[in-house]
């Protein structure tokens, strides 16, 4: 018997009919499910392992107008050695800085650092710039030594229904990245609905993003558990469809160890063990690391230390 696909013959892929594959999201149930992950009770060994894993997944971030090479140096040292070696805490996954601070960061970290350099680009945080300048910014930032580019999508284009333009911009940015990893910031706080978050996630993954990321940290609300769940489910469906594992990065608003552990629980129970690695899951944060370290020390020494005992990032 002849297969239907054979009958269709050499008709180009784009001409074949595809029913829309972007599923709808129910707000109430997705929020309820996301909340369920906060009910996991992590004690003793599970807690300590989770806290250390969270540190290893942190993109230690500073994104301020007043950033200087000196401030970035502090950040880099903190990322390489978050606390005294005796606690056995791994380094953070990356530092995340503005393009102008990539060069100083590379100087501090050296060429083969375990800590990656991530740089926001493409007219961060608004993305309201011409594509030409965005791509030039990406190319220069990569040339300066960035391992990872955190781009922002053109939310204006998305909300105006110009999904193809958004797709093309991401694809072009991916080309400009060369060997650098591309994280695509959706700025979910501006997309507002879960349906939008899902659609934007699918576009970003199909256009070549290696990671999808919730927020710039400049818009409230930033990362939330339900938004992250919607994105993780998009990642799962993309994996089944294409075989490619896309990474996830919630960023902004994650300040406490307890919050961070809830995100890890969600990753574990939604995408499984393969995603519990800094290669596929990151948390964008600045103050979180200090709380993680306080909890780690508490697990080891059975009492809390004052904040004075923890180095500033």
């Amino acid at each position: 018997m002849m297969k239907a696909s054979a009958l269709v013959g050499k008709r180009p892929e784009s001409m074949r009919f595809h029913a829309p594959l972007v599923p709808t999201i129910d707000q109430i149930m997705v929020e309820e499910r996301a909340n369920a992950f906060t009910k996991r009770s992590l004690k003793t060994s599970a807690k300590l392992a989770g806290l250390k894993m969270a540190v290893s997944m942190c993109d230690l971030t500073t994104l301020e107008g007043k950033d200087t090479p000196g401030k970035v140096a502090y950040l880099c040292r903190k990322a390489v050695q978050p606390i005294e070696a005796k606690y056995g805490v791994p380094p953070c996954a990356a530092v995340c800085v503005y393009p102008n601070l990539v060069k100083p960061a590379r100087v501090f970290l050296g060429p083969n650092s375990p800590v990656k350099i991530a740089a926001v680009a493409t007219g961060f945080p608004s993305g309201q710039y011409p594509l030409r300048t965005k791509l030039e910014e990406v190319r220069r930032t990569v040339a300066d030594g960035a391992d990872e580019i955190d781009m922002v999508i053109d939310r204006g284009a998305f909300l105006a229904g110009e999904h193809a333009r958004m797709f093309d911009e991401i694809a072009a940015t991916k080309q400009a990245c060369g060997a650098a990893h591309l994280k695509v910031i959706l700025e979910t706080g501006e997309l507002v609905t879960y349906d939008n978050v899902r659609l934007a996630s699918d576009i970003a993954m199909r256009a070549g993003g290696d990671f999808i990321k919730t927020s710039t940290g400049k818009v409230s609300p930033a990362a939330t558990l339900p938004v992250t769940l919607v994105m993780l489910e998009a990642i799962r469906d993309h994996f089944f469809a294409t075989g490619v594992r896309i990474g996830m990065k919630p960023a902004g608003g994650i300040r406490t160890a307890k919050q961070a552990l809830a995100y890890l629980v969600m990753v574990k129970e939604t995408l499984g063990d393969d995603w519990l690695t800094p290669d596929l899951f990151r948390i964008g944060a600045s103050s979180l690391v200090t709380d993680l370290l306080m909890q780690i020390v508490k697990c080891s020494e059975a009492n809390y230390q004052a904040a004075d005992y923890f180095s500033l990032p």
Partner: protein
Amino acid sequence: MKAKTQDAKISPKGSVVPAMAPPVIPLKDRHLNFGGKWEYAPSPEDARAYPIAPRHELFINGKFVAPASGTYFPSINPATEEQLTEIAEANAADVDAAVRAARRAYDRVWGKMPARERGKYLYRIARIIQEKARELAVLETIDGGKPIKESRDVDLPLVAAHFFYYAGWADKLKYAFPGKTPRPLGVAGQIIPWNFPLLMAAWKLAPALACGNTVVLKPAETTSLTALRLAQIFQEAGLPEGVVNLVTGAGATGAAIVNHPDINKIAFTGSTEVGKLIARAVAGSRKHLTLELGGKAANIIFEDAPLDQAVEGVIAGIYFNQGHVCCAGSRLLVQEGVYARVVKKLRDRIQTLRVGNPLDKNTDIGAINSAGQLAKIRELVQSGLDEGATLQQTQCALPARGFWYPPSFLTGVTHAHRVAQEEIFGPVLSVMTFRTPEEALERANNTPYGLSAGIWTDKGSKIFKMAAKLNAGVIWANCYNKFDPASPFGGYKESGFGREGGLPGLAAYCRLD
């Protein structure tokens, strides 16, 4: 991979390096791996703070009294099979003493008391329940096997909410039914099941007391402990003697209540089989009757549904409380176009359910309530396999002692299969397909039961169209197993009659002249 390309990247001119292509996992390896990379350590609720007395007596006329029968039966922890305590078995003489105490309290105190005074007692009881919520949750879990997460977050908040809700009605009764004057019925005999021991007691007691009735209540023989603890709370609240009487025991005790001539109202929640016996026994008497019986609810997923959330609803519908839920969504009807996707999602999702020690705060699925129930579940699943269905289960180790059954679902099920017709009352789902909304309706209604149903679609108009034609007392749209004291609950057909909760729940305990 990154290290390899590091040098190229830092080339001074920013020359174009080809974009990095991520590895592609071959089709056969595209599955999620829910292994032990980050294991949750045990996190059990400490039960030692709440010791259980070695013996429990009957609660009659405000006091704990030894049974006239002189006999006691053991009560075990279904998660360990260890004996927790022994419980008095009430015979006909004990039931008679309880009914006489209730009648006396009705005639002399409770029936005559101003409604606002009755409300104060109910508010007080609700507050004490909230204060002792943790203890009651632990006790419920030890006695019945349900996970502490559920007894803590679902059962106990709802128990308190029911008392608060009906406390609020007590002094507003005369406005509840415009043009009518509600009067109490008298003595109510209430028989409750083992799946939600304390919650079912609250559903029955709160409206009965608010309306001015007095009560003889029998908890299920495997789960008497929280009801008996509730009796202590009544004492603490100063509830007048005899207003609530508790008689513990099995079927014979229940029969003594049903057949007692001085009872005005019987309220029963339990199996359809026993419900039919009670209906026969009560027929011809002047007793009022409400029955809340079994179910075989259809959970219907349309192609346009939010599938991931629908799967969560399926999980909540069938695995909540080990599937020991009369309104459990035990038949899943999936539109053919999304059948494969839904089954795949379901298969992945049940691998993350954690089965084990009910006192562990991370346990999702606790112990089956009794050896008898476990045998019934096994027998029905075996019948499904014999009739050609395919079984999918959570791959997990079950504890060596106690009664356990892993979350399961059966595919390849037709209406002719027993698993599609009979109530399994366990964590077992039967999955079937349909093509059109009309077919979904026909299949959903093709059952002698009619307690509940679920509809999953993104289209509001479809929800209303379906809901109007489904023969079910409770219909959830894009959610499942949601309860609120203000919302009436009850069934059609062989799922019973009468409503509990809300205004209809109040009407079930009043004479409306």
